[in-house]
Protein backbone atom coordinates (compact mmCIF):
# COMPACT_ATOMS: atom_id res chain seq x y z
CA UNK A 1 0.00 0.00 0.00
CA UNK A 2 2.95 2.33 0.55
CA UNK A 3 3.33 2.76 -3.17
CA UNK A 4 -0.04 4.55 -3.30
CA UNK A 5 1.43 7.32 -1.15
CA UNK A 6 4.53 7.79 -3.31
CA UNK A 7 4.90 10.06 -6.35
CA UNK A 8 4.27 8.16 -9.59
CA UNK A 9 7.39 8.11 -11.82
CA UNK A 10 7.05 9.62 -15.30
CA UNK A 11 7.77 6.32 -17.04
CA UNK A 12 4.77 4.77 -15.29
CA UNK A 13 2.39 7.73 -15.66
CA UNK A 14 3.08 8.31 -19.39
CA UNK A 15 1.99 4.85 -20.61
CA UNK A 16 -1.11 4.86 -18.36
CA UNK A 17 -2.19 8.26 -19.73
CA UNK A 18 -1.53 6.95 -23.26
CA UNK A 19 -3.81 3.98 -22.60
CA UNK A 20 -6.71 6.41 -22.09
CA UNK A 21 -6.77 6.83 -25.89
CA UNK A 22 -7.41 3.19 -26.92
CA UNK A 23 -9.59 2.56 -23.86
CA UNK A 24 -12.02 5.33 -24.82
CA UNK A 25 -11.95 4.28 -28.47
CA UNK A 26 -12.65 0.63 -27.71
CA UNK A 27 -15.08 1.17 -24.82
CA UNK A 28 -17.27 3.61 -26.74
CA UNK A 29 -15.69 4.84 -29.96
CA UNK A 30 -14.80 8.11 -28.21
CA UNK A 31 -11.82 10.34 -28.94
CA UNK A 32 -10.04 11.54 -25.82
CA UNK A 33 -10.11 15.30 -25.13
CA UNK A 34 -10.90 17.34 -22.03
CA UNK A 35 -11.47 20.92 -23.23
CA UNK A 36 -14.55 19.94 -25.28
CA UNK A 37 -16.29 19.74 -21.90
CA UNK A 38 -16.02 23.51 -21.57
CA UNK A 39 -17.89 23.80 -24.86
CA UNK A 40 -20.52 21.33 -23.65
CA UNK A 41 -20.94 23.41 -20.48
CA UNK A 42 -21.45 26.53 -22.62
CA UNK A 43 -23.90 24.63 -24.83
CA UNK A 44 -25.86 23.53 -21.75
CA UNK A 45 -26.49 27.18 -20.86
CA UNK A 46 -26.42 28.90 -24.25
CA UNK A 47 -28.13 32.14 -23.20
CA UNK A 48 -27.07 34.12 -26.26
CA UNK A 49 -28.22 31.43 -28.68
CA UNK A 50 -24.76 31.37 -30.28
CA UNK A 51 -24.55 29.05 -33.28
CA UNK A 52 -21.29 27.44 -32.05
CA UNK A 53 -23.14 26.18 -28.97
CA UNK A 54 -26.32 25.07 -30.73
CA UNK A 55 -25.99 21.31 -30.74
CA UNK A 56 -27.25 18.39 -28.70
CA UNK A 57 -24.68 18.64 -25.89
CA UNK A 58 -26.16 15.68 -24.03
CA UNK A 59 -25.78 13.42 -27.03
CA UNK A 60 -22.30 14.73 -27.86
CA UNK A 61 -20.87 15.33 -24.44
CA UNK A 62 -22.55 13.43 -21.63
CA UNK A 63 -19.91 10.69 -21.76
CA UNK A 64 -17.12 13.28 -21.61
CA UNK A 65 -18.67 15.22 -18.73
CA UNK A 66 -18.91 11.89 -16.89
CA UNK A 67 -15.22 11.28 -17.62
CA UNK A 68 -14.51 14.78 -16.27
CA UNK A 69 -16.45 14.07 -13.07
CA UNK A 70 -14.30 10.94 -12.75
CA UNK A 71 -11.12 12.96 -13.08
CA UNK A 72 -12.26 15.24 -10.23
CA UNK A 73 -12.81 12.14 -8.06
CA UNK A 74 -9.44 10.78 -9.21
CA UNK A 75 -7.87 14.10 -8.24
CA UNK A 76 -9.46 13.79 -4.80
CA UNK A 77 -8.03 10.28 -4.38
CA UNK A 78 -4.59 11.19 -5.74
CA UNK A 79 -4.20 14.59 -4.13
CA UNK A 80 -6.15 14.26 -0.90
CA UNK A 81 -6.57 10.64 0.17
CA UNK A 82 -3.24 9.37 -1.18
CA UNK A 83 -1.42 12.70 -1.40
CA UNK A 84 2.31 12.66 -2.12
CA UNK A 85 3.94 13.40 1.23
CA UNK A 86 7.08 15.28 0.16
CA UNK A 87 7.57 18.53 -1.78
CA UNK A 88 8.05 17.98 -5.53
CA UNK A 89 11.55 16.89 -6.49
CA UNK A 90 12.11 19.77 -8.90
CA UNK A 91 15.28 20.43 -10.86
CA UNK A 92 17.60 22.66 -8.81
CA UNK A 93 17.90 25.09 -11.73
CA UNK A 94 14.11 25.56 -11.87
CA UNK A 95 13.98 26.22 -8.13
CA UNK A 96 16.80 28.76 -8.43
CA UNK A 97 15.08 30.50 -11.38
CA UNK A 98 11.75 30.67 -9.57
CA UNK A 99 13.32 31.89 -6.33
CA UNK A 100 15.01 34.65 -8.31
CA UNK A 101 11.54 35.63 -9.57
CA UNK A 102 10.26 35.76 -5.99
CA UNK A 103 8.46 32.43 -5.61
CA UNK A 104 8.98 31.42 -1.98
CA UNK A 105 6.58 28.60 -1.23
CA UNK A 106 7.53 25.27 -2.85
CA UNK A 107 5.25 23.08 -0.73
CA UNK A 108 2.30 21.36 -2.38
CA UNK A 109 1.43 21.01 -6.06
CA UNK A 110 1.14 24.72 -6.86
CA UNK A 111 2.74 27.87 -5.40
CA UNK A 112 0.48 29.44 -2.79
CA UNK A 113 2.15 32.74 -3.80
CA UNK A 114 0.15 32.61 -7.05
CA UNK A 115 -2.58 30.00 -6.79
CA UNK A 116 -4.68 30.28 -3.63
CA UNK A 117 -7.68 32.25 -2.40
CA UNK A 118 -5.27 34.67 -0.70
CA UNK A 119 -3.35 35.17 -3.97
CA UNK A 120 -6.62 35.99 -5.74
CA UNK A 121 -6.48 39.28 -3.83
CA UNK A 122 -3.12 40.24 -5.35
CA UNK A 123 -2.71 41.67 -8.87
CA UNK A 124 -0.41 38.82 -9.97
CA UNK A 125 -2.63 36.11 -8.51
CA UNK A 126 -5.66 37.65 -10.17
CA UNK A 127 -3.88 37.66 -13.54
CA UNK A 128 -2.71 34.05 -13.12
CA UNK A 129 -6.09 32.66 -12.09
CA UNK A 130 -8.49 34.74 -14.16
CA UNK A 131 -6.52 35.64 -17.28
CA UNK A 132 -4.67 32.31 -17.29
CA UNK A 133 -7.94 30.40 -17.15
CA UNK A 134 -9.52 32.61 -19.79
CA UNK A 135 -6.67 32.10 -22.26
CA UNK A 136 -6.70 28.35 -21.65
CA UNK A 137 -10.41 28.20 -22.45
CA UNK A 138 -10.34 30.64 -25.37
CA UNK A 139 -7.15 29.23 -26.87
CA UNK A 140 -8.16 25.59 -26.52
CA UNK A 141 -11.39 26.12 -28.42
CA UNK A 142 -9.73 28.40 -30.99
CA UNK A 143 -7.08 25.72 -31.61
CA UNK A 144 -9.72 22.99 -31.64
CA UNK A 145 -8.30 21.15 -28.64
CA UNK A 146 -6.00 21.25 -25.63
CA UNK A 147 -3.12 19.15 -24.38
CA UNK A 148 -5.21 16.00 -24.25
CA UNK A 149 -7.06 16.51 -27.54
CA UNK A 150 -4.08 17.62 -29.61
CA UNK A 151 -0.85 16.62 -27.82
CA UNK A 152 -2.07 13.17 -26.75
CA UNK A 153 -4.98 12.14 -29.03
CA UNK A 154 -4.06 14.07 -32.17
CA UNK A 155 -0.36 13.20 -32.15
CA UNK A 156 -1.25 9.57 -31.37
CA UNK A 157 -3.22 9.60 -34.62
CA UNK A 158 -0.30 11.33 -36.42
CA UNK A 159 -2.42 14.39 -37.26
CA UNK A 160 -0.45 17.27 -38.81
CA UNK A 161 -3.00 19.75 -37.41
CA UNK A 162 -2.18 18.61 -33.89
CA UNK A 163 1.56 18.95 -34.47
CA UNK A 164 1.00 22.56 -35.58
CA UNK A 165 -1.21 23.18 -32.53
CA UNK A 166 1.42 21.72 -30.16
CA UNK A 167 4.07 23.97 -31.74
CA UNK A 168 1.65 26.83 -31.02
CA UNK A 169 1.31 25.65 -27.39
CA UNK A 170 5.08 25.89 -27.00
CA UNK A 171 5.38 29.27 -28.74
CA UNK A 172 2.90 30.70 -26.23
CA UNK A 173 4.34 28.81 -23.27
CA UNK A 174 7.92 29.90 -23.94
CA UNK A 175 6.89 33.54 -24.45
CA UNK A 176 5.04 33.47 -21.13
CA UNK A 177 7.88 31.71 -19.25
CA UNK A 178 10.79 33.77 -20.54
CA UNK A 179 9.33 37.19 -21.39
CA UNK A 180 6.04 37.83 -19.59
CA UNK A 181 6.41 36.05 -16.23
CA UNK A 182 9.62 37.97 -15.39
CA UNK A 183 7.62 41.17 -15.93
CA UNK A 184 4.64 40.31 -13.75
CA UNK A 185 6.30 38.48 -10.85
Amino acid sequence: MDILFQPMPWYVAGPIIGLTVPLLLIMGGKMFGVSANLRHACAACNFGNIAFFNYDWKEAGWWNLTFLAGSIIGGFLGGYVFANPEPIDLAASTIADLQALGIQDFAGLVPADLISWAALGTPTGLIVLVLGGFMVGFGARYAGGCTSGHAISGLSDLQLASLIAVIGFFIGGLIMTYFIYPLIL
Partner: protein
Amino acid sequence: MKFLEYLKYLLIGMAFGFVLVKSEVVSWFRIQEMFRFDSIHMYGIIGLAIVVGIISIQIIKRNNIKDTKGNPITIPPKDSTQVKRYIIGGSLFGLGWALLGACPGPMFALLGSGLTVMIIPILSAAAGTYVYGMLRDSLPH
Protein backbone atom coordinates in the same frame (compact mmCIF):
# COMPACT_ATOMS: atom_id res chain seq x y z
CA MET B 1 -30.58 1.99 -17.62
CA LYS B 2 -27.49 3.70 -18.92
CA PHE B 3 -25.73 3.58 -15.58
CA LEU B 4 -23.18 0.96 -16.62
CA GLU B 5 -22.61 2.77 -19.91
CA TYR B 6 -21.49 5.85 -18.01
CA LEU B 7 -19.79 4.05 -15.14
CA LYS B 8 -16.97 3.03 -17.46
CA TYR B 9 -16.32 6.65 -18.43
CA LEU B 10 -16.37 7.63 -14.77
CA LEU B 11 -13.80 4.94 -13.95
CA ILE B 12 -11.48 5.83 -16.84
CA GLY B 13 -11.75 9.48 -15.77
CA MET B 14 -10.91 8.54 -12.18
CA ALA B 15 -7.78 6.70 -13.28
CA PHE B 16 -6.82 9.70 -15.44
CA GLY B 17 -7.28 12.25 -12.63
CA PHE B 18 -5.46 10.01 -10.15
CA VAL B 19 -2.43 9.61 -12.43
CA LEU B 20 -2.35 13.33 -13.29
CA VAL B 21 -2.04 14.21 -9.61
CA LYS B 22 0.24 11.37 -8.45
CA SER B 23 2.69 12.03 -11.30
CA GLU B 24 2.58 15.80 -10.56
CA VAL B 25 1.45 16.68 -14.11
CA VAL B 26 -1.02 19.02 -12.40
CA SER B 27 1.79 21.01 -10.79
CA TRP B 28 2.49 24.61 -11.82
CA PHE B 29 6.12 23.89 -10.81
CA ARG B 30 6.40 20.96 -13.22
CA ILE B 31 5.05 23.09 -16.09
CA GLN B 32 7.63 25.79 -15.32
CA GLU B 33 10.32 23.11 -15.24
CA MET B 34 9.15 21.81 -18.61
CA PHE B 35 9.22 25.21 -20.34
CA ARG B 36 12.72 25.76 -18.89
CA PHE B 37 13.83 22.36 -20.30
CA ASP B 38 15.24 21.45 -16.88
CA SER B 39 13.85 17.92 -16.54
CA ILE B 40 12.68 14.98 -18.58
CA HIS B 41 9.63 14.59 -16.31
CA MET B 42 6.88 16.21 -18.44
CA TYR B 43 8.48 15.30 -21.77
CA GLY B 44 8.78 11.69 -20.64
CA ILE B 45 5.13 11.55 -19.62
CA ILE B 46 3.75 13.23 -22.75
CA GLY B 47 6.21 11.39 -25.01
CA LEU B 48 5.45 7.93 -23.62
CA ALA B 49 1.71 8.67 -23.68
CA ILE B 50 2.00 9.49 -27.38
CA VAL B 51 4.11 6.37 -28.10
CA VAL B 52 1.50 4.17 -26.40
CA GLY B 53 -1.26 6.08 -28.23
CA ILE B 54 0.40 5.67 -31.65
CA ILE B 55 0.97 1.94 -31.18
CA SER B 56 -2.59 1.42 -29.91
CA ILE B 57 -4.21 3.34 -32.77
CA GLN B 58 -2.08 1.51 -35.35
CA ILE B 59 -3.15 -1.84 -33.86
CA ILE B 60 -6.81 -0.72 -33.88
CA LYS B 61 -6.64 0.52 -37.49
CA ARG B 62 -4.68 -2.38 -38.97
CA ASN B 63 -6.89 -5.00 -37.37
CA ASN B 64 -10.15 -3.10 -37.94
CA ILE B 65 -10.91 -3.55 -34.26
CA LYS B 66 -14.50 -2.68 -33.36
CA ASP B 67 -15.70 -1.02 -30.19
CA THR B 68 -17.56 -2.93 -27.48
CA LYS B 69 -20.89 -2.21 -29.21
CA GLY B 70 -19.60 -3.77 -32.43
CA ASN B 71 -19.27 -0.46 -34.29
CA PRO B 72 -16.17 0.18 -36.40
CA ILE B 73 -13.78 2.64 -34.74
CA THR B 74 -13.42 5.76 -36.84
CA ILE B 75 -11.24 8.73 -35.94
CA PRO B 76 -12.34 11.96 -37.65
CA PRO B 77 -9.28 13.64 -39.21
CA LYS B 78 -8.50 17.20 -38.10
CA ASP B 79 -8.46 19.89 -40.78
CA SER B 80 -4.76 20.61 -41.29
CA THR B 81 -5.47 23.41 -43.79
CA GLN B 82 -6.56 25.76 -40.98
CA VAL B 83 -3.00 26.61 -39.98
CA LYS B 84 -3.88 30.03 -38.54
CA ARG B 85 -6.22 28.67 -35.93
CA TYR B 86 -3.66 26.15 -34.68
CA ILE B 87 -0.81 28.67 -34.49
CA ILE B 88 -2.78 31.64 -33.09
CA GLY B 89 -5.22 29.64 -30.96
CA GLY B 90 -2.46 27.27 -29.89
CA SER B 91 -0.17 30.14 -28.87
CA LEU B 92 -2.94 31.77 -26.82
CA PHE B 93 -3.54 28.42 -25.16
CA GLY B 94 0.21 28.12 -24.48
CA LEU B 95 0.29 31.57 -22.88
CA GLY B 96 -2.51 30.51 -20.56
CA TRP B 97 -1.01 27.07 -19.94
CA ALA B 98 2.30 28.54 -18.73
CA LEU B 99 0.62 31.38 -16.81
CA LEU B 100 -1.86 29.21 -14.92
CA GLY B 101 0.45 26.18 -14.90
CA ALA B 102 -2.48 23.93 -15.73
CA CYS B 103 -4.40 22.84 -18.80
CA PRO B 104 -8.04 21.70 -18.77
CA GLY B 105 -7.57 18.17 -17.33
CA PRO B 106 -5.33 19.28 -14.46
CA MET B 107 -7.63 22.20 -13.58
CA PHE B 108 -10.34 19.73 -12.64
CA ALA B 109 -8.01 17.18 -11.02
CA LEU B 110 -6.56 19.99 -8.86
CA LEU B 111 -10.06 21.06 -7.87
CA GLY B 112 -10.72 17.47 -6.79
CA SER B 113 -7.48 17.40 -4.78
CA GLY B 114 -8.93 20.09 -2.54
CA LEU B 115 -7.57 23.20 -4.24
CA THR B 116 -10.95 24.94 -4.28
CA VAL B 117 -9.56 28.15 -5.78
CA MET B 118 -9.31 26.28 -9.11
CA ILE B 119 -13.02 26.99 -9.55
CA ILE B 120 -11.94 30.52 -10.58
CA PRO B 121 -9.79 29.49 -13.60
CA ILE B 122 -12.39 26.85 -14.51
CA LEU B 123 -15.10 29.52 -14.68
CA SER B 124 -12.69 31.80 -16.57
CA ALA B 125 -11.94 29.00 -19.03
CA ALA B 126 -15.66 28.48 -19.59
CA ALA B 127 -15.98 32.24 -20.16
CA GLY B 128 -13.06 32.09 -22.60
CA THR B 129 -14.76 29.26 -24.46
CA TYR B 130 -17.99 31.27 -24.58
CA VAL B 131 -16.24 34.39 -25.88
CA TYR B 132 -14.55 32.27 -28.57
CA GLY B 133 -18.00 31.02 -29.60
CA MET B 134 -19.21 34.63 -29.83
CA LEU B 135 -16.22 35.87 -31.87
CA ARG B 136 -15.67 32.74 -33.94
CA ASP B 137 -16.91 34.11 -37.26
CA SER B 138 -14.66 37.17 -37.10
CA LEU B 139 -11.46 35.32 -36.13
CA PRO B 140 -8.92 34.01 -38.68
CA HIS B 141 -9.01 30.22 -39.01
